[in-house]
């Protein structure tokens, strides 16, 4: 068990280190001088004139870019560990971490709730689809749901936006709450947030439900061929009991593994949904930062995404042995 946890922990740290390394070296490997580019951008915006070369030199010193590369790398690692990710260029001098902090609760809320819903519904649907006794209704729902799951999340988001916010305006077109509204800690705020989050959440749920269903269906079909199902039938257990306690339960573990493996896929999809609905989470902020060429914010968000997925995967890895004692007992 200890080796299992240590191994997973090592993998997580390795992923985080890789993400940081890529984040550090990639922009530096690209042609062009970022300092001069940014100065030109700033001076073009502010109409500044003067000695650009001197400004560039002082800026380089201030940013620590005159240091040797290995030293810059170590400083970068230390700063990142202290959550010091630099400052935004577009909203100077807002620290990058503040921009991330402002967006994170929105994304975590949206993603958490919609993934929970779609995972539960999809798993149940997939199980029912594999079950020979389930009726025509399940089959009728199953096919279109799987078809929809092929479509990228945000493409579905566009369709939902046009249908339920424009053509038939029962939901707001975007944002986390109304523009002129000051969020407080009360029920009205909660209601407005839920109201504004419905369409983005619906896009994620609808687009991912089929993925879970397909995976679960395959798993349950496999499980239903096992001997213990035949035995349960021979014992005369009720079909309902066999389905829930023998069929679904045993197919659930690989399904959790599947959740861990597709997590990054889900996050990537949700980021784009936020863009479509101008939802104030990390994804929309990333989009804005890209539009404004705000490199440090882009880098910060990219790093945050990689780290949070690595950590979540690690946590899911820790949950497995609790569901299935065979894992972590030394045999892999």
């Amino acid at each position: 068990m200890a080796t299992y946890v240590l191994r997973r922990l090592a993998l997580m740290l390795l992923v985080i280190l890789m993400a940081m390394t890529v984040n550090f070296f990639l922009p530096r490997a690209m042609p062009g001088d970022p300092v001069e580019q940014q100065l030109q951008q700033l001076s073009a915006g502010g109409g500044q004139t003067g000695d650009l070369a001197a400004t560039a030199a002082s800026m380089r010193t201030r940013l620590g870019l005159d240091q040797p590369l290995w030293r810059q790398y170590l400083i970068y690692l230390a700063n990142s560990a202290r959550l010091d990710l630099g400052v935004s260029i577009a909203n100077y001098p807002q620290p990058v971490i503040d921009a991330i902090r402002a967006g994170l609760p929105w994304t975590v809320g949206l993603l958490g709730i919609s993934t929970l819903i779609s995972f539960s519904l999809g798993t149940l649907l997939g199980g029912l689809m594999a079950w020979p006794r389930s009726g025509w209704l399940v089959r009728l729902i199953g096919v279109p749901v799987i078809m929809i799951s092929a479509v990228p999340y945000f493409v579905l988001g566009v369709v939902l936006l046009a249908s339920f916010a424009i053509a038939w305006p029962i939901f707001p077109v975007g944002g986390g709450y109304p523009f002129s509204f000051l969020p407080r800690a009360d029920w009205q705020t909660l209601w407005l947030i839920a109201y504004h989050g419905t369409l983005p959440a619906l896009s994620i749920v609808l687009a991912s439900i089929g993925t879970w269903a397909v995976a679960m269906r395959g798993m349950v079909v496999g499980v239903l061929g096992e001997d213990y199902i035949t035995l349960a039938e021979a014992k005369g257990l009720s079909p309902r009991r066999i389905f829930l306690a023998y069929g679904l339960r045993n197919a659930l573990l690989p399904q959790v593994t599947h959740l861990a493996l597709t997590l990054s896929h889900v996050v990537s999809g949700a980021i784009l949904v936020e863009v479509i609905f101008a939802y104030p989470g990390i994804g929309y902020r990333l989009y804005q930062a890209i539009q404004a060429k705000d490199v440090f914010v882009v880098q910060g968000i990219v790093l945050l995404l990689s780290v949070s997925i690595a950590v979540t995967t690690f946590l899911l890895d820790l949950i497995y042995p609790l569901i299935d004692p065979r894992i972590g007992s030394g045999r892999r």
Partner: protein
Amino acid sequence: MSAVLARLSRERLLLFGLLLILLLAGIGWLGPFLVDTRLAEIGATRARRPPDMLHWLGTDTQGRDVLAALVKATPKTLEIGLLAGLIGLSIGGTLGLLAGYLRGGVDALIRTLADIAMTIPAIAVLVLVATNVRTMTVEAMALIVAGLAWMYPTRAIRAQTLSLRELAYVDVARLNGIGGLQLVVTELLPNLAPYFAASFVTAVSSAMLATVGLEALGLGPQNELTLGMMLYWAQYYGAVLRGMWWWWTPPVAAIALIFIGLLSASAGMDRLLNARTRTEG
């Protein structure tokens, strides 16, 4: 050959998916006969027109004929996907073969690499690369996206190589003095072909998904017309909010159809492979 065709015709799902993709590719070949593709240039015609007899799918705010744009964008999008899928498959296939054939330390290294790459969110790395590339071209796009389409092929090919190399005929070949590269090429590769085909579909699919996502964020090839870029411009100029449905529905429909086609092809391919393992094993 006829046996293969007969088996193919029984796999309706696979056939449906492939036909759908071919049909969409056909837009690129047949489209220019229906519409003047020069109308896909910015300012080529009057802007913001709903569909009429002159412009069947209307025009956008930049004065592009939407149908002409669609005709140009669809094959371009498929091209990026196929190119990236091919690169991803070559990388993944090679790594998978190496890992499965050599095993040991090489296998552990490649497996860990693939595991790490699968954990890092594709879009994050892509965003990082794409924001740092000065001018994006279709080829650069394919190359970037391929950098994250190799993990699934690696895993699939590795698993199959591992099980294949234990089979008796490989032992016979080895006893006959065939070794190393020759063994891999003459004995393993032909039997891995169907798995390569299946991995190719998956690789194209994930490459396409990444491409469209990057383009929607505005990181696509700015001077080229792809479905994702069409959607990006539509989103950028608020086509949905302004009720210009004729502008955003064609790219959305085309993208949806491409992915439905790919999903069907991949599901059909899986079924074909499973039938194969069932009858042979």
